[in-house]
């Protein structure tokens, strides 16, 4: 692991009106790491991701990626990132080929390399027969595959995955998990946001738990286990103050009587 962090976040704060969603967040991420970024709903996870991808331009604090400041030159940073959004937004009247061609060209890729890569990737994801079908007929999993390809098409240094497994079938899940590990081996940095604790546990070599706009746990799964509990699920509920999940369940049972 190299000494200079690839992503440096210093005192990052974000307000929505009077509500503070991120409270002086600071973190360093090193090349080749797979970060599991977890937290309950409304903890500030999506906000962090949106600031990193340049979707939210106004924030206080400092975000430096590969030595470039987000406030000064967001365009250069965006080139380094590949982003797979959570909500599966896609221009679904296009075909996968048209869509990926469009995305690749926004990154300034040459037509010839792009076409070759798109065809190969679509085939690798099992979409070879749907290359020229409009995506409005696609299942959720098929669209998710196209989004995944769009996130890695320009061979980015950093890949941000926001719930990338939603809608995928078991086989595709295995492929994507394997893919994450292989990309990390290639030296890519991966920022993985998810609610699926068991996957996070397996793929990430560093887990960050965020709650109410602050990082409340940060370390390898092993180190978290020593300090807290033995599964990520339990660690999660303990640290986010929902330790007594049994009580919640009993309240639910009681309400049925």
């Amino acid at each position, binding site marked *: 692991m190299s000494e200079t962090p690839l992503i440096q976040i210093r005192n990052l704060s974000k307000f929505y009106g009077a509500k503070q969603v991120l409270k002086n967040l600071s973190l360093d991420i090193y090349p080749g790491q797979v970060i599991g970024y977890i937290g309950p709903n409304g903890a500030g996870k999506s906000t962090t991701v949106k600031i990193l991808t340049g*979707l939210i331009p106004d924030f206080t604090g400092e975000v430096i990626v590969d030595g470039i400041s987000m406030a000064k030159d967001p*365009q250069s940073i965006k080139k380094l990132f590949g982003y797979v*959004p959570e909500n599966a937004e896609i221009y679904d*009247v296009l075909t996968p080929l048209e869509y990926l061609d*469009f995305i690749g060209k926004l990154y300034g890729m040459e037509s010839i390399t792009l076409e070759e890569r798109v065809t190969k990737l679509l085939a690798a994801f099992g979409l070879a027969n749907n290359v020229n079908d409009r995506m409005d007929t696609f299942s959720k999993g098929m669209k998710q595959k196209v989004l995944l390809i769009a996130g890695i098409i320009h061979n980015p240094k950093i890949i941000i995955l926001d719930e990338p497994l939603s809608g995928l079938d078991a086989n595709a899940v295995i492929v994507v998990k394997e893919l994450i590990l292989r990309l990390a081996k290639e030296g890519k940095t991966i920022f993985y946001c998810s609610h699926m604790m068991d996957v996070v546990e397996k793929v990430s070599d560093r887990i960050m738990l965020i709650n109410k706009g602050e990082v409340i746990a940060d370390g390898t799964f092993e180190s978290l286990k020593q300090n807290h509990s033995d599964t990520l699920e339990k660690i999660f509920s303990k640290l986010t103050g929902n330790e007594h999940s049994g009580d919640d369940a009993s309240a639910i049972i009681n309400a049925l009587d």
Partner: protein
Amino acid sequence: MDKIYLKFIQLLNPVLSRAGVDTDQLYQILRIKLIIDERRPKVMFAQRQNNKKKVQSPWFVSFFTVLMGIFIGLVLFLNKMPYVGQTIYFSVFMVLMSLTLISDFTTVLIDTRDQFIILPRPVNDRTIAVSRILHISIYVLRLALLQGLPGLVMIGFIDGLAAVPVFFIQILEVTFISIFLVNIVYLVLMKFVSPQKFKDIINYIQIAFSILIFGAYYLLPKLIDVSILKNISILSHWFSYILPPVWITALNELLFHHERADMITSLLAITGLVVPLFGLWLVAKVLAPGFNRRLSIIATSDGSAGTPAKVKTEGKSGLMDKIANLVATDPVENAGFRITWKLATRSREFKMKVYPAFGYIPIYFLYFTLNGKGHSLAERWENVKAGHNYIILAYLCIFLLMAALSNVAMSDRYKSAWVYYTTPISEPGKILSGMYKAILVIFFVPYSLFWGAVIVGIWGPAAINDVLLAMLVGIIYGILMALFMIKGLPFSKPVMIKQSGGRIVTTLMTMILLGGIGVAHYFLMKWETVIWIAIIPFFLITWIMLHYYKKTTWESLEMAEDL
């Protein structure tokens, strides 16, 4: 066609790249946006062909726009008096253009997906802003040219070949003014209403637009007396001077009819040239920056884009509760009643298809009854009042019931209807009767009563029994229609569904039955007591049919195949 625009824009590349625009990215964004536009069904036409979900070809849309242009172009020939033809032409042009822009282009302007697809990529703000401006310009110019093309040809015949390029400039003027107006409308709306409301209001503007087009198509030829119009003197009214179409027309008057032009004409012509440019400048400099910011707020407020979205709360509707418990006492029926009530009054898709009927009905009535060529409008109206044609209006109200019924089983989100199939409902007819009652209570009954009151107000209390009987006939017809043609639980079927041949026959049969009853009613109207007595058996039939409708079984229902 689109290729030509893109080629043309590439000519601007040197200027654009000096302004900090990435021209390759710009080209890609515009190309994709134009492809998306082409494949997107247009709101204005979706109305009429709601059972054909597949794309209307862009050629069809273009053809329709040109046809519209031909219609309005005809008024250009009214050129004996100064200003008349062109003023009317440009007024209609402006209204049509503004409404098309609002109803068809709003979805393009507020494409929330851009947030997640283009923004995370290395595209700078200026490229995005320019791509948006150019995209709108291409759309608007395409519309303007198609709509103005027939006018361009016609003016050549009227005022000579030299008038054609001038007319082209006039079209540009009216286009700029329309853009300016639409911007003002957007800004005012955005300033005063919440994003959620904003979309609702746009929805209502679309509905009003389709009623307007419908009304103009059916009624204008009846209402307008060309001989009067020909001799109207526009400039004798003071307010003419502040109407943009008058300024625009002045240019033509000045250049091609100088024998009747004067000082004022020149002044108006100059105003017509200056104001649109000033408006465009205002849009670009003053209005656009705030506009884009507000627009992105609207775009993000929709999804999970981070802003703590204001949750739209629905208050408890006391009135609905009371009515629901009164007319639908069975729990299952009650559920059907409430779900239909709520979905029908909240779903934009349903409103878009059904609400125009509110306006179509009086338009149809006037279309059928205002007859008598050569008489003045007042005379014709006196004729209508003297006759018994009000019964047509009473029966036309059934049209609203038909519109509501034929859409109530359909929805884009039909998959949510899985709840009906996973819950142990042994008598789905109860849901159906709840649904039917809800439609009666929200749409048909109040609407019929409203026109009933109007009828009684104009034609006197002798009409009360006719109105009541027509309503009962409507309710019976509605049940027949629901039984044989709808066959679906509320909002449970995809919009595109095949009409089987047998169904067309039943439709025809029930229509004939309805017509027969209507005609019989018309001939029996003279005998007031007969009508009063007829109400009793019809009431009983209604009651019995509702009873049987409630017994509908699963076997007779159709459901979506791909739940």
